[in-house]
């Protein structure tokens, strides 16, 4: 079964280059191309693609806005953000908007295929360069209002489950591995999300990457 892909980038050459990479893969089917955020949302509404590859910085409607609108009209689409920037603020916004992955353009040649395959399976994917930025806390701002790390609030069992979730394990896999009932794992997971103020699996992974729990 082929993966139906929407490709949105306002830079024509870049779009062609990416198409070139994707066409090499027999399972990928590029069902639509868009050169602006608005076009991308239209195409997603029409095609309901499996994966939407969306450039962060596009004219008219930027990629992050486009991502959240795409998810509104096509909730099952996995949005993979494509960007020139590794700045964590872009990544955070993208994740908040519902993106499941974040790939840097200059490493797209190596990572795009695996990124598509990963997000299409419902897991998160971040370029290693992005993940590195998250771990490098040395130059991070001291936010006057930020309390000490919420991670301290987690129990040891919750931390274990947090780690396993971040590594991409499903609830069921965790239940088997820790010999717990599925319901217990779900409860723990809910507590983790609550305590860390997280709203999606992608955010959970991102927060774990930030804390240096996963790479």
């Amino acid at each position, binding site marked *: 079964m082929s993966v139906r892909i929407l490709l949105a980038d306002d830079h024509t050459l870049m779009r062609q280059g990416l198409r070139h990479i994707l066409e090499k893969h027999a399972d990928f089917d590029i069902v639509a191309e868009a050169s602006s955020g608005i076009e991308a949302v239209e195409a997603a509404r029409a095609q309901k693609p499996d994966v939407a590859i969306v450039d962060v910085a596009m004219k008219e409607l930027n990629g992050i806005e486009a991502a959240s609108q795409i998810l509104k009209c096509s909730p099952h689409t996995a949005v993979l953000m494509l960007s020139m920037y590794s700045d964590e603020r872009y990544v955070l916004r993208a994740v908040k908007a519902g993106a499941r992955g974040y790939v840097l353009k*200059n490493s797209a040649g190596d990572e795009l295929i695996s990124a598509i395959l990963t997000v299409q399976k419902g897991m998160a994917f971040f370029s290693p360069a992005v993940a590195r930025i998250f771990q490098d806390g040395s130059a991070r701002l*001291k936010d006057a209002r930020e309390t000490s790390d919420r991670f301290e609030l987690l129990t040891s069992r919750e931390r274990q489950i947090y780690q396993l979730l971040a590594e991409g394990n499903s609830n069921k896999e965790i239940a088997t591995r820790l010999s717990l009932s599925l319901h217990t794992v779900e409860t723990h997971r809910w507590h983790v999300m609550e305590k860390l103020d997280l709203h999606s699996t992608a955010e959970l992974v991102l927060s774990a990457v930030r804390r240096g729990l996963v790479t």
Partner: protein
Amino acid sequence: MAGALSKRAVLRAGYAGVVAVLVLSAVEAYRIQSTISRQHLEIYRQFVDQDAGLGTLRRNLWLAGNYVRDFFILPTPAQGELLHSQLQDLKNENEQALQHLALSSNDAGTAAKLRKRLDEFWAVVDPLPRTMLHTTGGQQYDFLQREIVPRRGQLYNAMLALAGASQQRFQNSQSEFASARRQAAGRLLMMLVAALLLSVLVVRLSLRHAENLELQAERHYAAVEQTKGELQQLSARLLEIEEEGKRKLSRELHDEIGQTLALLQIEISHAQSLPEVRSAALIGSLGRARELAERTVQTVRDTALLLRPALLDDLGLVPALQFLLENFLRRSRIATEFTEEGVADRFPDAVMTCVYRVLQEALHNCEKHSGAARVRVAVRQLPECLLLEVEDNGRGFSLNANGMPLKSSGLGLLGSRERAAIVGGTLAIDSAPGRGTRIALRIPLPAVCEAAA
């Protein structure tokens, strides 16, 4: 300028003229006063002298009559001697009085007539002690009636005439003196009127001059104000153009060059993965090419960010400020604290740019000049305004009356203030040597809404 100079000269001459006329009037008044009183005194003295002279003559005539009568009572030679000496004394006295009268009298005719009568009288009286010795009462009576009484009457009349003339002259000089006084008073009055007219003229000229000056000053002020406004507009426009240029260049660098380089990297990595590429040398070369492209992308991206961070346009104000602060922290190693309260992502472009550039300038100053160890940045959105505060614990500086740094290094802050003014905001700087620096940018939100509309 020359016109103003000559006007001033005219005014000065006018003032001098008024003062001169007033001084002249005062001198004239004094002169008139002293002349009049001198003349008055002189005339009065003459009158009194004449009156006294006439009185002496009259008395002597009467005495002479009496002495003659006394002699007639006992006309002996001894009595004749006595009469002679008595008459001689009176004659001498009369001579003195007459001389005095002739001197003081301007009426020579009347005086001469009087003298003639007097001489006639004496001619009759003088020989008496000799001619009338031992005469009888009848002869004496006849003589008195015939010779003495008529002459004495004539003399009285002459004296009366002289007194009348003197009286007349006194009256004449009185009226002359009065008319002179009237003339003098008239002259003085004219001078005073001239002084008054001249001073009115000078005052009018002065007033007009002052009005002209005031008008000129007003015009200058208006011109300066207009120029100031134009300059402000110009600098606003300049800032706008600069910002737009930076944005374009940044976009161009990033979108065209950056993306093409990224694409180049993609192509190279694609080439590396091709099964045909087996040579280690080729793989190595491709790897280096890719690294080179990577480095260039980095440079282009950094340059673009330096010009204007895409974050500002893509993500909004707060992420851009955080980005700025993180770079600052990385570069300067100054402990940086950031607080953000209720700030929306999106504001009109001019507002976001203003806040971003003001913070940039403040951080730049903090890093280059303050020697601060800590900087605190807060951005807050209140119902009525957007507030940015930057506070450091550096060495601070003195402020001038406009609340700007004394040294010329404050040019950047001046630019910040201009930026604030463009969006209708204000920039307050609070600093003192050794007390750190606090900069507060305040942009009213109604202005924000208007700018957005």
